[in-house]
């Protein structure tokens, strides 16, 4: 039987009072682009550090290629990391930074220079080998960090919010580049991020972390379309969530907790007749934010909560404004029933 590249078995890690990782079990398959998604403090970076070997689990096991790695120091793991702030060594040139891995493994000076140059070519920085990290732009540093981590030909590459420090445009370019690099090299990528767009667009599978636990592990499409918990529905799809109590007050719904994404919600004047086979709720508009392709309507429901509806520009009801009484409605089939756990 082929073992998973990485496997967590009932792993916990407690710092003082905080359960950073709380009885987590999952497996990452070889060659996969795996994202760990969650807000800060949700335990995703703690899990990454357990794989890299910077920290050890308090209980449970972390397996690499089927072998328990507790007590194996980072320098004896076939795993490399791209750090959030890159952690380039400022007293070394770019080339020396990239050649550091082969150097500490006793590769001869000539060979490691050749390999380092090849890696710099791969990340399109061939001409900058003699510079110091301080002389590079953020995007260039990011590529150096990538080259440095890949030169050891690791089985797994860990990326800790690698694009967090870059501006939007560069970030989108790098997303595409990282994804194609991963395909080309066939290495397992474990990608930690708090940006759900990044996780959805790049990963083969996504684990959503919350309070030290994995809320849901699924392919991006399923995660978006079928969120398992209220937390996932809110965090991944910024969906409207109705708990069982609220759901019971909607006309045309049988009372289970559910999520409905904003783009599936229609806004119409309160007096217009509701069509059949929809669930609906009345409320008043409290804000309309124009976003170019459409507008986000914030509506205070009579049932209590503020829900939002995404209305494409073409379908914007011209006669309605802030303060107007409206009815929100959505097809029954679009509502996703939620498990009772989570919040």
């Amino acid at each position, binding site marked *: 039987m082929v073992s998973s590249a990485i496997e967590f078995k009932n792993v916990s890690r407690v710092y003082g009072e905080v359960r950073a990782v709380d009885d987590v079990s999952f497996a990452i398959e070889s060659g996969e682009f795996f994202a760990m998604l969650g807000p800060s403090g949700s335990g995703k970076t703690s899990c990454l550090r357990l794989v*890299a070997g910077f920290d050890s689990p308090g209980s449970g096991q972390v397996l690499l290629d089927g072998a328990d790695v507790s007590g194996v120091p980072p*320098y004896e793991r076939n795993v490399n990391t791209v750090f959030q702030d890159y952690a380039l060594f*400022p*007293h070394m040139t770019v080339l020396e930074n990239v050649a550091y891995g082969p150097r*500490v493994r006793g590769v001869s000076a000539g060979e490691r220079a050749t390999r380092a140059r090849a890696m710099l070519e791969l990340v399109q920085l061939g001409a900058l080998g003699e510079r*110091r990290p301080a002389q590079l732009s953020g995007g260039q540093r990011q590529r150096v960090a990538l080259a440095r981590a890949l030169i050891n030909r690791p089985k797994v590459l860990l990326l800790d919010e690698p694009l967090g420090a870059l501006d939007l445009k560069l970030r989108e370019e790098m997303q595409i580049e990282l994804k194609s690099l991963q395909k080309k090299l066939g290495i397992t990528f474990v990608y930690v991020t708090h940006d759900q767009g990044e996780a959805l667009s790049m990963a083969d599978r996504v684990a959503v972390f919350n309070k030290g636990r994995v809320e849901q592990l699924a392919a991006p499409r399923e995660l978006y379309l079928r969120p398992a918990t209220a937390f996932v529905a809110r965090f991944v799809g910024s969906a409207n969530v109705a708990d069982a109590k609220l759901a019971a007050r909607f006309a045309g719904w049988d009372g289970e907790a559910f999520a409905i994404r904003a783009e599936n919600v229609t806004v119409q004047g309160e007096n217009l007749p509701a069509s059949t086979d929809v669930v609906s709720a009345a409320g008043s508009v409290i804000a309309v934010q124009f976003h170019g392709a459409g507008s986000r309507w914030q509506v205070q429901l009579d049932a209590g909560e503020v829900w939002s509806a995404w209305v494409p520009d073409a379908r914007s009801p011209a006669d309605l404004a802030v303060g107007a009484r409206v009815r929100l409605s959505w097809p029954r089939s679009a509502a996703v029933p939620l498990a009772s756990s989570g919040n």
Partner: protein
Amino acid sequence: MPYRPDEPSWLVRAGAFAGLAFMHVPVFIIILYAFTTDDRTYGFPPPGLTLHWFEVAFARSDIWQSLTLSLLVGFCATLIALILGTLAAFALARAKFPAKDSLTVLFVMPIALPGIITGIALLAAMKTWRVEPSVLTIICGHATFCIVIVYNNVIARLRRLPANWVEASMDLGADGLQTFRYVLLPQVATAFLAGGMLAFALSFDEIIVTIFTAGKERTLPIWFFNELFRPRDRPVTNVVAVIVIAVTLVPIVLAYYFTRPDDEHETAR
């Protein structure tokens, strides 16, 4: 009046420059006095200038003996301080363990408490355990506060290093020793040297603790202290003062150069 937040008021500017002048005048005066032809009074201005007193001072064997002793003590105390201070800094820079805070306090106590406490404590211990004062006891006393200087310099640099450099190095396959050699050492080396320089300068000039531990040995500061109450050789004292300034100035300037904040470790992240 236009609003210029980058310009100080004349009061601040005058106070700053006057204060700076106040700090330097005595040093310049002492240098001037080393060249005066007046050998009897502290009169100002000096009636004339001469190099004669340097000749006289260089011919005095007691000065040479004290100078050699001070250099020897300085080197030995600095060596001990470099080893022990660096070990302590590496132990306390990052690790978390119970009693860490107490140790941090312990390692700065010799500087935080007045020197006379260290001095009288060492003397009391020597009397109690019947240790005769000697060069060794002087070195022990000096090393105790020199350790603090090295420790402070090295730990300040270590704390400025991002924690993940060590992680990055180990991640790339370097074991603890390789990480120390390739990543930590190049970063800490200048702080280490600066600490050593400052420790040496401090030892070379130390009197408060030394008086208690020296017995009959006369380091240069002790020689100098005795001269203060015997004004007979005042011109020679002036010359020694200039020599002391010169010998301590070199390591201080070097230490400043080593720890200038504008070098490149600052910019790269």
